[in-house]
């Protein structure tokens, strides 16, 4: 069919060719139509490529490896991530989104298998920034040895999100007989932490540039599954593992003390804190024991496995500065006490609300 000859010659108005919007996210990228497909094709697929994703379905069909021989449980965790700035010294929201969920899945002693990722993009987000974030998700997933098998993207109007929010869900396999959880701590157990505390919180705070201080401290964001694997080989009867993220060490240990109905006594002098973090906290009026971490592990292990546990942590990439910082006690129940450098004891409570810089 060729009707061209019958059409009037258009010399006046013409339909403008739509802009391509290759440099920033616009509402159309969330339409579900052609632009969404392009976004997936150009940004996500090249980096997350795997068979379940490439199948292009609304679901990812995955087989559990050797399902017939697998016994045990699934470990499933989901986490929403928002951070300002999106990119900070030592990482970005993408790395955070992968590591955060991988770590949560692994705190059960699970082997992490798959992740899904859901993105809420703010209109106007730079496409280069998005690419970098997705790229670092890929790098973190590779390091952790997990596949990102399903995802979703929505776009919201400018001002309705902070650049990008990423929600990740992870699935892992807990081998049969493994019993690790917040309620398992026993009096006499040793409390270990895998390294310097407070790095992530201070790095992000400094990167915001609002408090007028600069620091060389980098976020500790890292996937911990390999260290956990080594730890569980060295200390197979580990009772509790947890990553002290928001609220820091103090808040996390309080949760465990409540769940396990025990007390926890820490030795202040044994807790590893980087001098630069200590200095920043002194200035701001923060306590590093309440500052967030994204690549630290707290492990509570029976006393006879503590030495092996410590050595295994210290051998691993993210555990060089690991230390035994205290022990589990039968009293005072549901409390965390800090034996101070002065020789006195004080309570280490949960954080009340947002951490606020002090006045003077």
């Amino acid at each position, binding site marked *: 069919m060729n009707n061209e000859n019958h059409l009037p010659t258009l010399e006046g108005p013409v339909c403008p060719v739509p802009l391509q919007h290759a440099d920033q996210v616009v509402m159309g990228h969330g339409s579900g139509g052609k632009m969404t497909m392009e976004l997936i094709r150009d940004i996500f697929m090249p980096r997350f490529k795997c068979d379940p994703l490439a199948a292009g379905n609304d679901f990812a069909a995955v087989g559990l490896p050797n399902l017939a021989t697998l016994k045990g449980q699934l470990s499933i965790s989901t986490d929403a991530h928002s951070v300002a700035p999106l990119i900070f010294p030592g990482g970005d929201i993408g790395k955070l989104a992968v590591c955060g969920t991988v770590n949560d899945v692994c705190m059960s002693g699970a082997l992490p298998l798959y992740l899904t990722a859901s993105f809420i993009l703010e209109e106007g987000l730079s496409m280069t920034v998005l690419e970098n974030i997705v790229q670092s998700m890929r790098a973190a997933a590779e390091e952790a040895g997990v596949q990102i098998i399903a995802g979703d993207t929505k776009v919201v109007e400018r001002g309705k999100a902070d650049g990008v929010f990423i929600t990740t869900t992870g699935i892992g396999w807990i081998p049969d007989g493994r019993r690790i959880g917040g309620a398992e701590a026993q009096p006499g157990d040793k409390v270990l932490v895998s390294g310097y505390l407070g790095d992530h919180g201070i790095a992000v705070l400094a990167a915001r540039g609002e408090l007028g201080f600069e620091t060389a401290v980098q976020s500790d964001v890292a996937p911990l599954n390999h260290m956990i694997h080594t730890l569980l080989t060295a200390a197979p009867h580990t009772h509790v593992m947890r990553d002290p993220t928001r609220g820091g060490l103090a808040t996390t240990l309080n949760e465990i003390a409540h769940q396990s109905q025990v007390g926890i006594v820490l030795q202040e002098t044994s807790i590893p804190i980087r001098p630069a973090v200590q200095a920043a906290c002194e200035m701001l009026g923060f306590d590093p024991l309440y500052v967030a971490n994204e690549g630290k592990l707290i492990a509570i292990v029976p006393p006879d496995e503590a030495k092996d546990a410590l050595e295994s942590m210290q051998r691993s990439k993210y555990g060089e500065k690991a230390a035994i910082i205290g022990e589990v006690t039968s009293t005072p129940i549901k409390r965390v006490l800090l034996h101070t*450098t002065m020789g006195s004891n004080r309570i280490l409570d949960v954080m009340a609300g947002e951490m606020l810089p002090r006045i*003077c």
Partner: protein
Amino acid sequence: MRYVDEFRDAELAKGLLSQIHKTVTRNWVVMEICGGQTHAIMRYGLDELLPPQAELVHGPGCPVCVTSLELIDKALEIASRPNVIFTSFGDMLRVPGSKKDLFSVRASGGDVRVVYSPLDAVKIAQDNPEKEVVFFAIGFETTAPPNVMSVLQAKALGLTNYSVLVSHVRVPPAMNAILSSPHNRVQGFLAAGHVNTVMGYWEYPEIAQKYKVPIVVTGFEPIDLLRGLLMVLQQLENKQYDVQNAYSRVVSYEGNKAAQEMINRVFEPVDRQWRGIGSIPQSGWGLRETFKEFNAETRFEVAHIQTRESEICIAGQILRGLKKPYDCPAFGTQCTPRNPLGATMVSSEGACAAYYQYARYRGEE
């Protein structure tokens, strides 16, 4: 960490504690003025290590705690207005007014921002000429220099959209008020070293002589506090009532004269309401007539707001050294950092918050 570790040295602390134990022969009540000192004492558990005869009571030196409820209600009213950017030190956001706090104003759409320095608030005013920018200028002598600096800078820049809600308080009138109270128990003071960094301690000998109380300028680290306390106790045992300086690495007798002159240029002494204590004559600073255009209270016409305080809260008695947080029926039950009835439970420097955070379990034993 240098300049800090040496003042947290456990061996030095043991030595000082043993001297304190040897010095004390009878009961003494010593007040540490500053909330920062209270927190250091509780954080390091120093009070547990002292002889029982040496009782520390906690002074009014927490700017958040003593800011009157009325002024907080005024702040909340101003912050709720549509064209206002309300700026404040972070601590103030959680302090309850009679119905809400600045956090809830922000959640309801008010533009409330935490600044770390009042000069940041001036910058916000420069960047937002179409908005009214208000800074909540609270604090003791310590925060006065940066706060007046912001006014001077706004004036120099010709800013007409910057103002300050002033709630400044001064230490010496509060010491006078405590010592002249018929219920007073305080026999000696650890003066607040940060205040003295600005003001020196030339105002203190008159107080020491008039009321026969030793006053020792004291820092904030465990060693500083123990040294200051030892000096006060030695004076008390020797019936000596002098002003001494245990914080000479940063404090001089005259203080920071340039800062004092700057404060005097912008501020003048005024009567001030203290939360839980009441009005103390000439105990605060307010803007001088020549800077009245920067006064947020008149600019936003909030002078009519008048409020009363919670009847349960005994913060006033705590701030005067008459009671301890444990003595309050609401402590740790109705009143917690998450649901504070009074300001002493709010601030990271408040006495009730310090007890709750570091030593709550002791009351249960």
